[in-house]
């Protein structure tokens, strides 16, 4: 896999045409953030695991994401969940508490039942956040997202499209990096060096400069704008958003 394919995740037509692909990105973003807040309300291990499971099933069933793609995306992120759980387990506020139930003692290290439960809950929270994030990223087209932000979210079109223009340059960054490393190799220098970042930024800023001149030359941000791709709310958005809200509430209630 080349750097360019990692750095510019293109979503395919199958994902784009899927139920989740057609759902407005703002709705998906809203769901992701509301679920995040909901997850912050509980330390129980069950709600985050249920939500993660639902997110993953939805990704495959409603998002047409191949299980392999999902697994490839999630595997490296699993480590984060384990580490968060481990940190909370080892450094828990409950461990020094004499009233807490001890389950294990290794020298000065004391692990309590309460710490185990909280650590499991927080680890599960990360699993859930990562799963929801993967579903969003793997079913969302960046242009659709920005069009929606501008037309439905009333975000400043100059900032939104300026950002989209900069984002489209990501594959270019990979090429620039290859060129810069090649130049260093040719000069007999180490290929990886923090100073590569300066070169990368110089090229990126120069590119942004030219891009902004080209955009200004075409009347970008001057006067009222019309839209080529019209985005509007659909019944699907309400259904997906409503379903997600119900799922969250039921999950949080069930765990009590």
């Amino acid at each position: 896999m080349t750097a360019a394919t990692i750095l510019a995740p293109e979503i395919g037509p199958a994902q784009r045409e899927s139920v989740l692909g057609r759902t407005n990105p703002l709705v998906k973003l809203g769901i992701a953030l509301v679920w995040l807040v909901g997850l912050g309300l509980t330390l129980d291990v069950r709600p985050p695991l249920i939500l993660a499971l639902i997110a993953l099933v939805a990704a495959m069933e409603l998002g047409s994401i191949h299980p392999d793609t999902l697994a490839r995306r999630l595997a490296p992120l699993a480590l984060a969940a384990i580490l968060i759980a481990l940190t909370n387990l080892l450094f828990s506020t409950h461990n020094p508490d004499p009233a807490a139930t001890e389950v294990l003692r290794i020298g000065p290290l004391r692990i309590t039942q309460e710490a185990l439960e909280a650590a499991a809950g927080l680890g599960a929270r990360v699993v859930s956040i990562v799963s929801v994030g993967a579903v969003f990223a793997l079913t969302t087209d960046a242009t659709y997202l920005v069009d929606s932000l501008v037309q439905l979210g009333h975000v400043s079109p100059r900032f939104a499209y300026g950002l989209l223009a900069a984002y489209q340059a990501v594959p270019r960054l990979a090429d620039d990096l290859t060129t810069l490393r090649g130049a260093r190799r040719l000069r007999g220098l180490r290929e990886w060096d923090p100073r590569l970042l300066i070169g990368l930024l110089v090229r990126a800023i120069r590119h942004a400069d030219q891009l902004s001149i080209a955009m200004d030359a075409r009347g970008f941000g001057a006067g009222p704008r019309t839209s080529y791709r019209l985005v509007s709310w659909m019944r699907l958005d309400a259904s997906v958003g409503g379903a997600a809200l119900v799922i969250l509430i039921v999950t949080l209630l069930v765990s009590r």
Partner: protein
Amino acid sequence: MTTVDRVQAPSPTSPFDAWRTRDIVVAAVIGVVFGVVFFAWNQLYAGLDAVTKPFSDVIYGMWLVPAILAPLVIRKPGAALFAEMAGAGVSALLGSQWGPDTLLSGFVQGAAAELVFAFVGYRRWSFPVVAVAAIASALAAWAHDWVLYYADVSLGLQLLRLSFMALSAVVIAGLGSLALERSLRRTGVLDRFGAARGSTG
């Protein structure tokens, strides 16, 4: 292209003048470049975390760089928040272990730095101001992490994390951004930006 633009040098501008297209795209590009760096940093942090928690937080400052570097370059209100969120958005799309929360982190980190720059009226860009902005950003990130990820962790470790994060913010985000800005200015790419007006200090 550059020569033509130098002839039509912009008149001295106030930090509150509307953003030019160039400011928007350059701030966005800074965010995007660091979004890619964040993606790599996420892997590095996970690796470090596995062996050296909480010392891994000494690299935390990298995630705060756009919130400092973009305002240093653009010198306009909103640059810290915009660039930090752009970086967060890109790293979330590329696949971050913090998923949608990356956006929330980006928001609090960018907003905290933004507040400090706003407090000095977007007119002072000295090291102390930059250092305070970096620490504010780290403080916001720390509070956010506490609630969301380290809810059960003891106060001692929380404070240890905070000190590592603040130190890292000052060194990587503060000194690092100042050094990057100086290097960039020397190359001439910032000739028509706020940073070239020499209002440091």
